[in-house]
């Protein structure tokens, strides 16, 4: 069944929220009363319930099936975490209440910070970034502040970014005035320290390296790269999007990292929610710690305190580079992430990383005879990467293959990323999938792969056939953007 837009069935005079009609009063609006009708339809509660339930039924989620989206880490979202985030003491607390009335909230932030530091082997963390890309911004700003503090603001203006990096990396560097210099990826999908050595110099501000990288590989020369960068007087920013592969197995702090954001929604399972909210705390090395932004929590003899102003921070010996957001960060996500950490514990988190890597390699091994691996038949970390050379001459593209997975009841893997691999297919099963589930998934992919090789192109090029929509015309959407509903032209009655 089709679901109309609220503007097409909602009534402008209706509402689904009972509000007491205010008594007569003297307005203090200074003559700025709104005079148009606003134009928003209201739905009664039963109408709203049905509308959104039906919309939800057009969506695919982790809870409905395997969601093997490489680099996105779609793992199980425990409902315990949802419950904890909704405790009134967390969910119903204002960021500007007197700190004496939010000691538990500050304790939670302090506890989360302590776990993050221990997990990463780093000395400091800034909690306020609101998402991964915001965390990158935070880390790069700290680096820029540190460079300025050393008096090198005028010279160190280049940031090295491997070709395989997430788009947010170069975008972030560019946003705050750095020039991005690409680092080529070598044939095995990792970064050659010699490439870095060749590029690093007195103009280098930092390298932004993802590790494990977007090809699903741990950078084997990461320590040497860190040393090269440090020797050049620059900083090592690590994109921590794939930290979930190595929790308990290696610590960024031991590898020479100066700053790394942590996607709480990837590594620690806060729900993706159809595109957010995320949360991107950034761990910082000693060289950067002093430049962390306000606000931050400090523990005193009398309890926890929030340092909210640069002046106050200066009194603590810090030199914050500024402020990233109005309040203290994504508290709702902090609660969920800490709930995840406490639930897993040290043993569970290590096991989760191992299972994530095991599952990815199992999928890889079970598909290796049919699909092609760009960097050879070697173990991967938490995600298995294939390219499209095996599809050559089949008339089936990576996109077609992905869309055909929908008809088999699966969400497609990540496609065409990383850019360094042609027609990339990046599969991340995560530790949440059982072996039984993976075996079904593998069987479905094998069946599809054999169909493609067999020349059954129609099964792919027209896919999906069994989804709420057939393939959508994205070009048309971009060429003549329709970004909002507008009332249809009134049909004029011929008799009028």
């Amino acid at each position, binding site marked *: 069944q089709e679901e109309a837009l609220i503007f097409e069935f909602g009534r402008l005079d209706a509402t689904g929220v009972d*509000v007491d009609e205010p008594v007569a009063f003297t307005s203090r*609006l200074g003559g*700025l009363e709104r005079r*148009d009708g606003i134009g928003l339809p209201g739905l009664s509660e039963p109408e709203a319930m049905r509308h959104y339930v039906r919309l939800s039924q057009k969506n695919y*989620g982790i809870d409905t099936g395997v969601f093997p989206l490489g680099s996105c880490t779609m793992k199980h979202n425990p409902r315990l975490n949802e419950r904890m985030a909704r405790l009134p003491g967390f969910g119903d607390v204002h960021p500007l209440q007197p700190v004496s009335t939010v000691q538990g909230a500050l304790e939670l932030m302090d506890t989360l910070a302590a776990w993050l530091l221990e997990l990463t082997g780093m000395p400091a963390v800034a909690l306020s970034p609101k998402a991964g890309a*915001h965390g990158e911004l935070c880390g790069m700003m700290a680096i820029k502040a540190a460079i300025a503090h050393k008096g090198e603001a005028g010279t160190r203006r280049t940031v090295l970014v491997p070709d395989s990096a997430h788009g947010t990396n170069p975008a972030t560097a560019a946003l705050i005035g750095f020039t991005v210099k690409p680092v080529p990826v070598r044939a095995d999908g990792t970064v050659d320290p010699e490439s870095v050595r060749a590029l690093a110099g007195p103009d280098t501000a930092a390298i932004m390296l993802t590790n494990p990288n977007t090809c699903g590989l741990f950078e084997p020369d990461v320590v040497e790269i860190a040393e090269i960068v440090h020797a050049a007087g620059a900083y090592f920013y690590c994109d921590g999007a794939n930290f979930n592969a190595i929790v308990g197995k290696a610590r960024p702090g031991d590898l020479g990292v100066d700053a790394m954001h942590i996607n709480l929604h990837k590594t620690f399972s806060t729900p993706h929610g159809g595109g957010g909210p995320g949360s991107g705390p950034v761990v910082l090395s000693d060289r950067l710690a002093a430049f962390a932004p306000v606000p931050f929590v400090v523990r005193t003899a009398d309890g926890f305190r929030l340092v909210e102003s640069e002046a106050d921070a200066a009194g603590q010996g810090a030199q914050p580079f500024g402020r990233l957001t109005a309040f203290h960060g994504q508290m709702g996500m902090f609660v969920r992430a800490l709930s995840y950490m406490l639930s897993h514990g040290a043993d569970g988190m290590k096991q989760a990383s191992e299972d994530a890597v095991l599952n990815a390699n199992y999928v890889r091994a079970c598909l290796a005879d049919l699909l092609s691996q760009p960097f050879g038949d070697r173990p991967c970390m938490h995600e298995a990467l294939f390219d499209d050379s095996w599809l050559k001459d089949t008339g089936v593209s990576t996109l077609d293959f992905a869309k055909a997975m929908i008809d088999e009841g699966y969400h497609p893997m990540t496609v065409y990323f990383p850019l360094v691999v042609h027609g990339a297919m990046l599969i991340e099963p995560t530790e949440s999938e059982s072996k039984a589930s993976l075996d079904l998934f593998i069987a479905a992919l094998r069946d599809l792969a054999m169909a493609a090789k067999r020349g059954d192109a129609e099964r792919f090029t027209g896919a999906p056939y069994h989804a709420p929509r057939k393939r959508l015309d994205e070009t048309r959407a971009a060429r003549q953007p329709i970004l909002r509903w507008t009332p249809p032209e009134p049909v004029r009655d011929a008799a009028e």
Partner: protein
Amino acid sequence: MRYLPLSNIERADMLARIGVASIDDLFADIPADKRRAGLADLPTRKTEMEVERLLGRMAARNTAASAAPFFVGAGAYKHHVPATVDHLIQRSEFLTSYTPYQPEIAQGTLQYLFEFQTQVAALTGMEVANASMYDGSTACGEAVLMAHRVTRRRKAVLSGGLHPHYAEVVRTLSRMAEDEVVTLAPDVSATEDLLAAVDRETSCVVVQTPDVFGNLRDLSALAEKCHAEGALLVAVFTEALSLGLVTPPGHMGADIVVGEGQSIGNGLNFGGPYVGLFATRQKYVRQMPGRLCGQTVDADGNRGFVLTLSTREQHIRRDKATSNICTNSGLCSLAWTIHMSLLGSAGLSRLARLNHVNAVKLHEALESLPEVEVLNASYFNEFTLRLKTPAAAVVEALAARGIMAGVPVSRLLPGAGLDDLLLVASTEINTDEDRAALVAGLKEHA
């Protein structure tokens, strides 16, 4: 561990299938001297019951807004959200879905984003809106960057009525991007001369209404001046509900309207997650940051929705992107659009009116107190009090009595010489008893 489905037997079978002897063989790329055998300094796994106890104990050390007479605002507001909203956003298909990059199986998310964009545009009186940003303050920062792109100028002027945190976010971003910012002095009574600050170098003027002190501002003259000088007017709000009752910036000539959407559908959450709203004119749409949902058709010609204009975005344009932003505030925007769909114009304006009435009632009750002076000539649901003593101490004293009196201006603007000012917000949640408690508390402590 309750979240991990594999058994040890299965793990062994899978390792055999992969062809390695042990799990550590899969981690062989980690330099040997950097490998860790675990996390010895952290506790091991806890049962669900233990986690509930631990976190429950922390939560119990905070005073929930609904457990006290509550007048705290200054950028986040305590409102009543219908139970339907939180129920619906927890539907698995919403909660555990990803950014809708596969639109054929994400029409649920995409349609509500399209509806959200339309609602935001209507509410702000603008032509188009994006699919949400992190929060109001970061949306404000993005608005300034966008104004730079549109005008090809790099100097922003910030009103003294702009929320100080928002101003700090813009200044931080600008300092880092090596752009110029002019910030006017704190403007308690909305009397600053912003027009005089606009010149041919100005990319935009950023002005908030209701401003951080609660004053409502007519932006029409400022918009004219901006446009005359080739600058954009960026209008900001932190109380989205105000737009149900007061003239929206879009009707006063604003070019970009940004604000905090938390008041609709979203809880206080100690500051986040919230939902940033971002609206502008159609002609600037390709300079707009953030995610956009657009209407199109599928292969059968049926209407459908997709993310669009992604050529602006980082995952396509990398260092040439309009913004580095990758996520939106999806689930919070869902809460927002559900609540707004329930309200409609009718419920929204009535709710806004009730907020205003409660503020007026509080104002009238406070007028009896010689200890306080209301500074505002106009306001929506928040205004500024001048006390006879420093507001921070008064707030602490009232908190000890179980009353959340408001936000001392000194907390937002330390060292600005405004220590006697207190911001007081009143929403639909406040009762006569709440007001009486605040008045009694201020009488004693202010």
